């Protein structure tokens, strides 16, 4: 079992080198992208786009495999993302940042791969369940309002997970920037 895990780790490492090589080739070709007519023999647009898309798919796959090889790290990393973002949200005391932190937490967890994404979904569902029950139980929020708020939060959560999976190397604070309110978008 350990040999198999080692062998997978070697493949992941080797693929990482391949991705770096692919990156170098793409950087070398980028100056030619969009510079030639479609019928021109020097047109590399289609090939360039294909290589670019394959590079991203490979990155996502490697990220997923890395996450599955170290499951405890992925799970704890995802939980850590949720806790940190929740603490940041509570300390800011700004409800308009709610969707931003919801999506950022899910984004960071999803960047741990497919396992991180699954943990993020589970934690998000649990939180929404707890929130809905608590708000209705206090009788200060109607059932319709609680469900509507939960739906809005889950939309932000899904968006965060999607972007985190697709862009595992990007800063989630930047990826989810559009979910900040207008008065918090100024730098």
């Amino acid at each position, binding site marked *: 079992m350990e040999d198999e895990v080692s062998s997978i780790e070697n493949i992941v490492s080797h693929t990482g080198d391949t991705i770096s090589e692919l990156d170098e080739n793409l950087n070398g070709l980028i100056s030619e992208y969009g510079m030639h007519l479609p019928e021109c023999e020097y047109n590399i647009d289609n090939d360039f786009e294909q290589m670019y898309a394959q590079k991203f798919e490979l990155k996502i796959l490697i990220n997923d495999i890395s996450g599955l090889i170290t499951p405890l790290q992925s799970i704890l990393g995802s939980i850590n993302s949720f806790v940190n973002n929740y603490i940041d*949200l509570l300390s800011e*005391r*700004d409800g308009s940042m*709610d969707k931003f932190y919801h999506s950022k937490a899910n984004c960071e967890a999803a960047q741990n791969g497919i396992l991180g994404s699954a943990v993020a979904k589970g934690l998000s569902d649990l939180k929404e369940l707890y929130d809905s029950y*608590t*708000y209705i139980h*206090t*009788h200060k929020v109607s059932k319709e*309002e*609680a469900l509507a708020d939960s739906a809005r939060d889950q939309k932000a959560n899904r968006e965060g997970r999607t972007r985190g999976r697709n862009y595992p190397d990007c800063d989630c604070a930047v990826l989810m920037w559009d979910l900040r309110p207008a008065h918090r978008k100024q730098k």
Partner: protein
Amino acid sequence: MKYIYVSIIFLIVFTFFSEEFKQAYDAFVNLNMCIDTGICNEGIKTKIDGVLIEINEENCKKYKKIWNSENSTCIIKNN
């Protein structure tokens, strides 16, 4: 040895059912509800349009938000 376990369990139960813990938990729930739904209880300190204020009827109306006198809550979010 079993007395130590009984003491620990008693301490945990006492903590969870103590008045201080209930108050702290209620405060947490109210703050969470305020940030999550925008329905804030009177007395909570939160930001409206980037400004930290204490929720009460006067401030709620001052910032043109909806005040619910039945629940003493202010709806600060436009969802």
